[in-house]
Each structure stands twice: as structure tokens, then as C-alpha cells.
């Protein structure tokens, strides 16, 4: 009896979450693939399912029309894809530029300061990105705080256009994703053995040489992890370009939204979502491959 209960409990522990995630995470993806292979039509729902269980049994008639459509109008879809990757790439780069010094500083300070600085890094990460983007708009607006200050100080006469430019988008991206870059960098920098650095300094290495030949290579795993953590969500970012970017700043997340809700073309929206997944899987697979290489 006791062992039966134990076995039953064990099955419950495994299969409850497995069942939930299977139904509400895996099944939706399967359904999305199904919709992306379906024919669009003017009805409710606006697609003719590729996979159907009906009166006359199970039928599966996939149509690649939607992917062909994306291929045919590639200029309309390729540009947002390229733009997404471009924005994500440079956002990652700028985050790294600020995050590395911050992580270094935190890793090198004493324990109590370290705790305070880490909480300071984590706090913005937990608060809503939407609200922080809103706060940024208040700074960058033509009648915002920065322009007011510049006009008051006599540096400029007319307000500088900062909103709806690449500058505003990158500011928003850094503001949102900086903590994600700092944490893995910090984790790899704090493990750095001080005696190695001291030995290098004793042997006459200059600061820059120590950084280039010891600190940077040893913190490389942190750099790669941080870049992945920033790049992956940045590619699919939706809120930042919608609020801070101009109308020409199309990104894939936005295109999915427009295709689905405005054009009511569900199959094409699903197909774009699947292309977005493919863009994200590539760097993950690459990182895994690199990992295996360095082990062997």
C-alpha cells in the first residue's frame, strides 16, 4: 500500500506539469504549424485546417502557399526580419559595452557593496518594461526633460528629434536588457582568481595586456551567455519598437500582430511566427555546438 502510494505520487509529480505544458505549450505550437500549413479563406475561423478530424475521418492536406506567399512578397517580410536581427544585434553590442564595466566593477567591489549593486541591477529587471519605456518617452520627447534642459542651457534652439529614431529604440533596448547581460558576466568575472592577475602584474604585464590576455578570455563564457540572453528576446521584441520606434521600424513581432489582427490572415501570421522561431533557434544551436567543441 505504501509503495503504491509512493509510485502514484511519483507519477503525479511528473505527469501533472508534463500534461499542463504538453497541452498549453506544445499543443499550441503544433496547432500553429497546422494553421501555417492551412489555406486562408474568408470565413470564421479564417482558415481551412490542414489537419482535420471530421465526419469522413482524418484528413491531412498541407498547403505551403503561405510560405510561398512570404517568399513571393519577400521584400515585405524580409525587411522586418533583417531589421529585427539588425536591431537585436546592435542592442546586444551596446548592452555588452555598458554591462562589461558594470559587471567588472561589481565583481571587484567588497561583499556588502556587491549585494547592494546586485539588487540595484535586479530591481529594474523585475519592474515592467512597459513602464520603463514610458519613463524613457518622458525624457526623450520633443517637449521632454532632456530637450527642455538643452533649450534652457542654450545648447539648442529647437527641440532635437530623439523619439522614433534608432537612438530611442537602442536606449529602450539597453534599458530593458542590460540586467540580463550583466548577471552572467558578473558570474564569470567574480570567479576570476585574483592570484592569476597578481602573477601577471608581478611579471610586468600592463593593465591592457592583462585584460586582453587573461580577463577577457576567462570571461568569454559569460559574454556568450549574456549575448544569447539579450539577443534572443530582442529579436522578438514587440513593445519597444511599437512605443519608441517610428512607423518604418517594422519588426517581426509587430508583423505577426498586424497580419493576425488587422489583415486577419492567420496562416501567414503563423508562418511568420515559425520563421521567427527558426531565427532564434540558430544562435542557441550554434552556442551548444561551440560548447561541445570546447569540451572535446
Amino acid at each position, binding site marked *: 500500500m*505504501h509503495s503504491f502510494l*509512493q509510485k502514484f505520487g511519483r507519477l503525479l*509529480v*511528473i505527469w*501533472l*506539469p508534463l500534461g*499542463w*505544458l504538453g497541452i498549453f*505549450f506544445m*499543443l*499550441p*505550437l503544433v496547432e*500553429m504549424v497546422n*494553421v501555417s500549413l492551412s489555406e486562408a479563406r474568408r470565413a470564421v475561423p479564417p482558415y481551412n*485546417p490542414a489537419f482535420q478530424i471530421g465526419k469522413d475521418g482524418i484528413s491531412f492536406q498541407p498547403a505551403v502557399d503561405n510560405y510561398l506567399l512570404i517568399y513571393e512578397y519577400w521584400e515585405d517580410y524580409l525587411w522586418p526580419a533583417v531589421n529585427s536581427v539588425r536591431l537585436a544585434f546592435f542592442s546586444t553590442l551596446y548592452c555588452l559595452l*555598458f*554591462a562589461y*564595466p*558594470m559587471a*567588472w*566593477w*561589481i565583481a*571587484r567591489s567588497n561583499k556588502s557593496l556587491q549585494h547592494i549593486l546586485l*539588487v*540595484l541591477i535586479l*530591481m529594474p529587471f*523585475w*519592474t*515592467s*518594461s*512597459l*513602464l*520603463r519605456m*514610458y*519613463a*524613457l*518617452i*518622458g525624457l526623450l*520627447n520633443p517637449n521632454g526633460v532632456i530637450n*527642455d534642459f538643452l533649450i534652457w542651457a542654450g545648447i539648442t534652439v529647437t527641440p532635437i528629434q530623439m523619439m522614433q529614431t534608432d537612438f530611442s529604440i537602442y536606449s529602450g533596448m539597453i*534599458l530593458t536588457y*542590460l540586467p540580463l547581460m550583466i548577471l552572467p558576466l558578473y558570474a564569470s568575472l567574480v570567479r576570476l582568481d*585574483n592570484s592569476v*592577475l*597578481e602573477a601577471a602584474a608581478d611579471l610586468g604585464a600592463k*593593465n591592457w595586456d592583462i585584460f586582453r590576455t587573461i580577463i577577457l578570455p576567462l570571461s568569454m563564457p559569460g559574454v556568450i551567455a549574456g549575448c544569447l540572453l539579450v539577443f*534572443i*528576446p530582442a529579436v*522578438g521584441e*514587440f*513593445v519597444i519598437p511599437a*512605443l519608441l520606434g517610428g512607423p518604418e521600424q517594422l519588426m517581426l*513581432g509587430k508583423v*505577426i500582430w498586424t497580419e493576425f489582427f488587422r489583415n486577419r490572415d*492567420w496562416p501567414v*501570421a*503563423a508562418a511568420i511566427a515559425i520563421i*521567427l*522561431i527558426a531565427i*532564434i533557434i540558430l544562435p542557441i544551436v550554434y552556442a551548444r555546438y561551440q560548447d561541445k567543441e570546447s569540451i572535446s
Partner: protein
Amino acid sequence: MRSTVPLLVKLLAIAGFGILYIPVMMMMIYSFNRGKLVSVWAGFSTKWYKELWYDDVLLTALYKSLLIGFSSATISTIFGLLIAIAFVRFAHFRGRLFLSLVASAPLVMPEAVTGLSMLLLFIAMEASFGWPSGRGVDTIMIAHATFGMCFAAVVIQTRLRDMDKSLEEAARDLGGRQPFVFLSIILPLILPSIIAAWLLSFTLSFDDLVIASFVSGPGSSTLPIVIFSKIRLGVSPEINAIATLMILTISALVMIGSFLVLRRDGKK
């Protein structure tokens, strides 16, 4: 000795902290601005905070967000705990690879993709067997619980793995049964991580805009959805006030959470 940090590094780091904090601080200051113009300081006033109390749309949305946050965070934490136990305590079981895939993929999935795929499933389910009828609070709750449990699992897993096993073994040697050992030994030891996981799931749900926009229906707008539509109309002192309140609340929760975690780390 290289404990000194170069000046350039310090300057860049301070600039980084500035980027993180200056916008929010300016917003908080201007939420106490008397004037309607956002950038012109017209004296100190708390009138925008009072005005929030009479905004029915905001209050309804706040209630819905809290309801969704509480229920989804609770589901997330329970399921996250189960996932953590399965991974840390059961070495081999059928479906381990599948579980590790579906428990980590939501962490990297773009919100727009998660939202769209869930919406498509809910629509297909409604067409096949009538549930869920329409979309509203319940569908948002399910969606939030689904990605929340993956984050909760990560938080609890770390603690469960680092836990000192000797106490548990001692209890078992003394004849304690599995449920007793779990409730009186393991649970208290990992309680801080469970609270942290709940807080994390709650804030993720409370802050989510994109997924909620996809799976919400008419009349089920959450607070971020309402705020987003207000922001598109322009900056206003009223949003400054609600944003200040939200950020202060979440920050207080984070302080409590990180205090709980740090205190335990300090004890070790």
C-alpha cells in the same frame, strides 16, 4: 594587487546605472507635478494620485491584473515545485527529455509567438468542444501560469539542488515517512525559494502586455493593456502616478524577495 578598478571602467559603469535609473526617477518626480503639462514644473501636488481613485477603467483593470497575478502565480509555483522535484530527485523517468524541453523552451520563446500560438489553440479548442467559451480572465491566467511555472521551476530547482541532504536523511533514518519528511524537513528548507518563485511569477504576470493582449477578450483588459493604450495617446501625469505606484510596489516585493534569498546565503 589589482583590486583597483580603472577610472574608465568606473565611469562607464556609472553611466550604465544612470541609464537604468534616471528615466524612472524623473518620471517619479514629475508624478508629483501640479501642472497638466508634463515637463513644466508647476509645484508639488498629489492630485494625480487622488485622481487615480476615481478612474474606474484603471481600477477594474488593476483588479483583473491582481486576480490573474495571484491565481497564475499560485499555479506556477505549485507546478514549478513539481517540475523541480522531478528533475532534482528522480534521476531517470520516462519523458524526462520531453519535460526538460517543454519546461525550458517557454523561457526563450518570443512573447508574440507564445501569445499567437496559445490564442490559436484556444480558438481551435472552442471550435472542437466549446471550451474556453470566448477569451477573458481565465485564458490569460492559463497563459501566464504556463510560462510562469518554467521560471518558478528554475528558481526552486537551484535551491533544491544545493540543499543540505543530511537533515533529510537523518529524518528518514529515524523512521520518518516520505510525506512527513517532505512537509517538515524539505519544505521549510526550500521555502525562501518557493516565495521567491511566487513573487517572480506574480511580477511576470502583472507586467505582461504582449501575451495578455493576444489571449484577452473584450472586457478583460489587464492593467498593462490599459496603460499601453493610454501611453499611445501621449505622456500624462496620471500615468506617471500609476507607473510610480506600480514600480514602487514591485520594487518593495523584490527587496523582500532578495532579502529572503540573501539572508539564507549569508547563513550558510
